[in-house]
């Protein structure tokens, strides 16, 4: 296995790292970090336009151009299926009919865990309305399977709470999700540093989506570069197949030919 591309909704991408655009110091840092990450898919939020203020403020879409990146509008801050569907419809209009979306319907502000019931409802409505849905969900293998069977184009279980940087808390569940996967499985949320991203990829995930791990690093651009390498290294290690773990040592130098 030497593949390096991920296919989402029929489109191939060379990078398995997906990134967010929140929490950066300014637009220049956002653009620089995103370029350093090597990503091809960039997620953003949809919010009310400021009226009558900061008229000359650069827009995110001027910095992260839809010609260069695949833009992935998200439904962050939505707590009901209705709000998420409404957000996706506005995003599709905003992007001139582009219909790939990141669906997230949240349960509460403290955990930002998904409200799975509302997520399923929203996913069904959006798929029926022609959207290609990449869906943020819990690391529950049963729900992950249901979302794939409904027609979501990627299932994105969390590794840990959004913005927590705790790393992958339940690798066993992620492995169970991967075992039955029929669509790309992309870990979304919880990565804190490069080794976390590598572990996600070593498990066999198809990709990883992150925002805070890069944006909240001391040097976001350098961390973006580290994440690019970690995702590549983790994927290569998964494809290479790791050695079995052993209890005791096994010498690397031969015993034959020793002269002492």
């Amino acid at each position: 296995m030497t593949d390096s591309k991920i296919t989402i909704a029929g489109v191939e991408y060379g990078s398995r790292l997906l990134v967010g655009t929140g929490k950066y110091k300014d637009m220049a840092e956002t653009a620089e970090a995103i370029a350093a990450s090597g990503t091809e898919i960039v997620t953003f939020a949809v919010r009310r336009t400021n009226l009558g203020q900061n008229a000359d403020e650069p827009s995110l879409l001027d910095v992260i151009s839809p010609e260069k990146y695949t833009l992935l509008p998200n439904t962050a801050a939505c707590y009901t299926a209705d709000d998420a569907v409404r957000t996706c419809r506005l995003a599709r209009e905003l992007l001139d009919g582009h219909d790939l979306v990141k669906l997230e319907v949240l349960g509460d502000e403290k955990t930002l865990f998904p409200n799975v019931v509302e997520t399923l409802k929203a996913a069904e409505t959006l798929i029926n309305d022609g959207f290609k849905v990449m869906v943020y969900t819990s690391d529950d293998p049963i729900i992950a399977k249901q979302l794939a069977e409904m027609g979501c184009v990627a299932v994105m279980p969390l590794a840990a709470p959004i913005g927590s940087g705790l790393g992958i808390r339940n690798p066993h569940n992620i492995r169970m999700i991967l075992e039955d996967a029929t669509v790309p499985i992309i870990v979304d949320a919880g990565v804190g540093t490069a080794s976390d991203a590598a572990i996600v990829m070593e498990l066999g995930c198809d990709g990883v989506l992150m925002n805070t791990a890069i944006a909240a690093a001391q040097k976001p651009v350098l961390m973006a570069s580290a994440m690019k390498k970690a995702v590549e290294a983790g994927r290569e290690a998964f494809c290479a197949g790791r050695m079995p773990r052993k209890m005791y040592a096994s010498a690397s130098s031969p015993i034959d030919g020793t002269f002492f």
Partner: protein
Amino acid sequence: MNVHVNGKVESLPTDCSITILIEQMDLVGKRIAVELNLDIVPKSEHLQTQLKEGDVVEIVHAIGGG
């Protein structure tokens, strides 16, 4: 007439279309999307979509988020 735009009441002339509203709000040429009373108004329909008293308009754009 009064129309709700992004949660604020705006006083607009009668015979105001979405296109005129966008001009008034200084948003010409910006990447935005418009919703009128919970329905999307496609860009191609901004010119002929007339606002009326009590309408609720949302104008959105892309911002940083994860």
